[in-house]
């Protein structure tokens, strides 16, 4: 987290500089105030006599307010930049992790890390860090002044001061641990909610609505109890500080009062007058003010550290992660020899941690323009093989050689539908495509009629998870993307799983077109028509590939 500070140093320094200026202006203001009061009370001066002092006070007030403004604005600029940097790094990291490893994580939890937890870093960089420097410097300046006025009063302040960071450090450590626990709870809470909200229709069907309300409320109360534990400790740290600050002010006030009365014979008490006494009294609360502000921002620190913990663990590589780098390397060295659209697997093996299933060892070469069907019972590893070829997972052994340029077309079982128009959803894969080619792609995917009846045409808005589209329509939209994309290699995972026979015919005709245009198609499927279309069909059994031979008739009628 410290490294983040590098890019924002000027703003950080600006915030500290402005804070120091504000502290000095406060010193001048209080000094002038004490002088004016002393002159009028002790020397019976008129207001005209103290006009210079009053003017000085006004100038100091203005300078102080402006410097505080500068501190806030610089600090915020610093915080905003850090958030931007961290988010950029997290996005890169998500890309590195890849879709398969992300599948085991809760997308809402990740989104809340990316948006809300990063949000909670701001206070640390914009307020806490600059204030930490100020809390050390400003009291020191005031202490020197008080020491010069009356060294014994300075000692009263000094006795209380070093205890404060000590107490705060002790309490802060506890608060941080609790904060981390709380962030975990928030992430779990949001995951739990999203899951239950998405499934409300199912909960209703099973008559579990009331029970899940209780459950949701219980999780929320659990969150409350955790929060409260954190707060109890967080507040204790500021209470300790407040206590010392208040007692110090009281002790200084009583010491000065008694000193002025001449009750104290020891030390510099006799030299006290109204000016020095009042000045010290005015500085005493200001002496503690930067520390008090720091403790108010302690919450920022604790929540930032709690969030950072989760963010760092997301950013740091896992144990089983050496593999993707290997995959990249093989990609670079070998793929130059391959034509776009061709695929070569050499002695590939795959093991899923904690699962029985093992893929391989298997070797396979697929040439550009081939149509290959993969069949096998569900869970046999068809999807895993496609994921290997797409580069989402790295083989545990062996090599996967694919050229990823210009792109690979991928049809997911759960297609992505982004919030935006129909055109936005299609142009994602071909940013420069004309409206005409969008329409063509939709027609090829069997969405021609749907488009004709859509009120806004290509500008019809689609929502998250495809509101306004049925399951089959969503899948056809994903197919339209395949048609639109310039990719030479097309990976399809059960493209006809949710389609009716009529649309299915559209789709199969479209796939035939794709194959005829020289694209390579690798399809995981149960569908006889697609199997018939394929040049080669492989069955996956116990992780091994075996060629399925079909009668020559079947191939001829379909090729």
């Amino acid at each position, binding site marked *: 987290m410290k490294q983040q500070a590098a890019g924002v140093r000027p703003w950080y320094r600006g915030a500290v500089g402005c804070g120091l200026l504000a502290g000095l202006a406060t010193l001048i203001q209080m000094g002038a105030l004490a002088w004016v009061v002393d002159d009028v009370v002790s020397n019976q001066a008129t207001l005209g006599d103290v006009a210079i002092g009053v003017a000085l006070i006004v100038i100091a007030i203005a300078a102080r307010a402006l410097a505080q403004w500068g501190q806030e604005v610089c600090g915020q600029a610093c915080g905003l930049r850090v958030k931007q940097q961290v988010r950029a790094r997290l996005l890169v990291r998500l890309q590195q992790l890849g879709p398969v490893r992300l*599948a085991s994580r809760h997308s809402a939890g990740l989104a809340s890390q990316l948006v809300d937890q990063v949000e909670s870093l701001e206070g640390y960089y914009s307020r806490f860090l600059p204030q930490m420097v100020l809390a050390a410097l400003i009291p020191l300046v005031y202490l020197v002044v008080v020491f010069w006025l009356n060294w014994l009063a300075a000692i009263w302040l000094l006795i209380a001061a070093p205890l404060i960071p000590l107490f705060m450090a002790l309490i802060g450590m506890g608060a941080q641990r609790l904060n981390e626990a709380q962030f975990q709870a928030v992430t779990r809470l949001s995951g739990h909610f999203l899951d239950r909200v998405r499934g409300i229709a199912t909960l209703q069907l099973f008559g579990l609505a009331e029970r899940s309300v209780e459950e949701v409320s219980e999780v929320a109360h659990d969150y409350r109890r955790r929060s409260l534990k954190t707060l109890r400790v967080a507040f204790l740290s500021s209470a300790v500080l407040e206590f010392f600050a208040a007692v110090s002010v009281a002790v200084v006030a009583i010491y000065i009062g008694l000193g002025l009365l001449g009750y104290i014979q020891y030390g510099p008490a006799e030299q006290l007058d109204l000016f020095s006494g009042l000045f010290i009294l005015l500085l005493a609360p200001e002496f503690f003010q930067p520390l008090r502000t720091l403790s108010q921002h302690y919450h920022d620190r604790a929540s930032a550290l709690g969030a950072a913990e989760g963010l760092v663990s997301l950013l740091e590589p896992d144990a089983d992660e050496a593999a993707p780098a290997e995959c990249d390397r093989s990609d670079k060295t070998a793929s130059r020899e391959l034509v776009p659209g061709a695929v070569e697997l050499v002695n590939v093996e795959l093991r899923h941690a904690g699962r029985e299933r093992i893929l391989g060892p298997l070797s396979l070469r697929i040439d550009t323009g081939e149509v290959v069907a993969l069949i096998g019972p569900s869970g046999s590893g068809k999807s895993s093989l496609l994921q290997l070829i797409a580069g989402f997972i790295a083989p545990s052994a062996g090599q996967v050689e694919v050229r990823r340029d210009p792109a690979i077309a991928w049809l997911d079982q759960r297609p992505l539908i982004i919030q935006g128009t129909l055109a936005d959803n299609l142009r994602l894969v071909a940013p420069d495509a004309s409206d005409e080619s969008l329409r063509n792609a939709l027609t090829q995917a069997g969405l021609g009629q749907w488009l004709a009846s859509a009120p806004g045409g290509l500008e019809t808005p689609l929502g998250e998870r495809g509101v306004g589209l049925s399951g089959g329509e969503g899948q056809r939209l994903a197919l339209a993307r395949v048609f639109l994309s310039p990719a030479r290699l097309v990976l399809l995972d059960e493209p006809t799983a949710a389609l009716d026979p009529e649309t299915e015919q559209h789709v199969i005709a479209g796939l035939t077109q794709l194959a005829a245009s020289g694209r390579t198609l690798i399809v995981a499927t149960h569908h006889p028509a697609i199997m018939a279309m394929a040049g080669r069909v492989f069955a996956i059994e116990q992780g091994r590939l075996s060629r399925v031979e079909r009668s020559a008739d079947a191939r001829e009628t379909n090729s």
Partner: protein
Amino acid sequence: MKALLSLRPWLGVLAERRGRLLLGAVLMLATLLSALGLLSLSGWFITATAIAAVSASGYLDVFTPGGGIRFFAVSRTVSRYLERLYNHDTILRLLADLRGRVFARLVTLDARTLARARASQWLNRLTADIDTLDNLYLRLLAPPLVALISILAFAAFAAAFLPIAGIVLLAVLLPLGLVATAGCAWWGWRASHRRVDRQERLRVRAIEQVEGLAELTSYRALDAHRALWHREERALLDDQRRLGQRTATGNLVVTVGIQLATLAVLLLGLEAFRSGQVSGPVMVMLALGTLAVSEGLGNLPMAFTQLGATVRAAERLNAQAELKTPLTGERLTSGGAAPSLSYRNVEVAHGARVVFSGLNLSLDPGQRIGIIGASGIGKSTLAQLAVRAFDPQGGRVEFDHQDIAGLAPDSLRARIGYLTQRSELFHDTLAANLRMGDPDASDAQLWDALERVELKAWAEALPEGLETWVGEQGRQLSGGQARRVALARVMLRDSPLVILDEPLSGLDAATAASLATTLDAWLAGRTALLLGHDEAALPRCDRYWRLVPGKQGTQLLG
């Protein structure tokens, strides 16, 4: 001003805990008054001792003010700690209750209303929006009130010594309070009102990027999607910067105002002291007191520039409350024998699109009917009508000759086992997902159910068996496994009426064929409505109907 009305229902919720809130505000006031007492009494004491030292008598009662100073020092700490802890407990209690209440309202909504709202927007309503509302009491209601009371009290106190000082205090601090509250709220309104939605949009983009990473990376479309993300992010950061600058400016105005008020009271006091109207100690006390009492204004600009965000959160929560009223009805009383199901002249339209107009279909007790039709033609609509996910615009659906529009949805659904087209699994264990079908099922019954859908061997091989977590929406399972888990869940329900929507989709041919046989036996003696795109995609049925597009919506052909 009108926008503030959207806070009304939430103020009502706060009012339910008014005792706690009042006590919290009293604690806040006690803290502020202690600080006021500490600083002003110390000022008074020092000045008094200085004067006593130079005057002839040289005597001053030091014990009473000394004790007062010590008392205020302790009371400030104690009341501040109690106040913060007590108020945060209140707020969190309120928030936890609110979350449950919002969710309780969501689960009573019908399927079509649910489809209109989007999942992660709801998540945001449930957590962020409700969290944003905690500003209402702790930052927006209590502090200005406490500041107002303490300013009025101190002005009255000052006026007792020096009337003009009291008047000046009110003349400066009250307008300043108005600037710090209404002024800052107005100034930050647009940016903060927008911020809630912008943050929400960024979150949606994040979810898209996570869930669609497979497609985005293979199509090399990640950069295109990043550009969308960056646009949302920049808009959010711009708003935050604007708000930060306005808050800083609000703080500047308040600081200058407070300090000038203190200076004014001091100068008035000095003048009055010279004319003998007030004593020296009182003069100093009033000036320092002004400084202390103004502390209450310090945090207001920050809180009020964010007022727009609080109101926006309230608006969104209110909008959700205005979604349709839940369906109700009488409890279903007929027994557990296989019922009849009939659709009579049913009319359904999705917006402008007519789905059914005058549709008739009946299932006799124990009869098994297959409905064949293309996707999107209305098969799932038939199923949703039967479980009263929503009511048809015209005609009626009868369960055992009772119009279901008059039946309580829960009691109706308790008789129906409905396998939806999408296998909806929860981020929970395999066992918990299965037990949704029958909460009292023993482990042995769960294993039986898994055996029937041919998942027993697979589940036994899992290291954690029934306690394996299935992942978000069952993503740790393959599509076919998820389908069969969902089917096992419906079978555990053991209901007299069964509706299966594409029960064999996503399964390989061998598994599909053997499951069709299993289902054929299991469905015996139950009334069943089976929906599929093809006769071959369904277990054997007594009779098949075909749904085809017609001039007036979808028609049934024998």
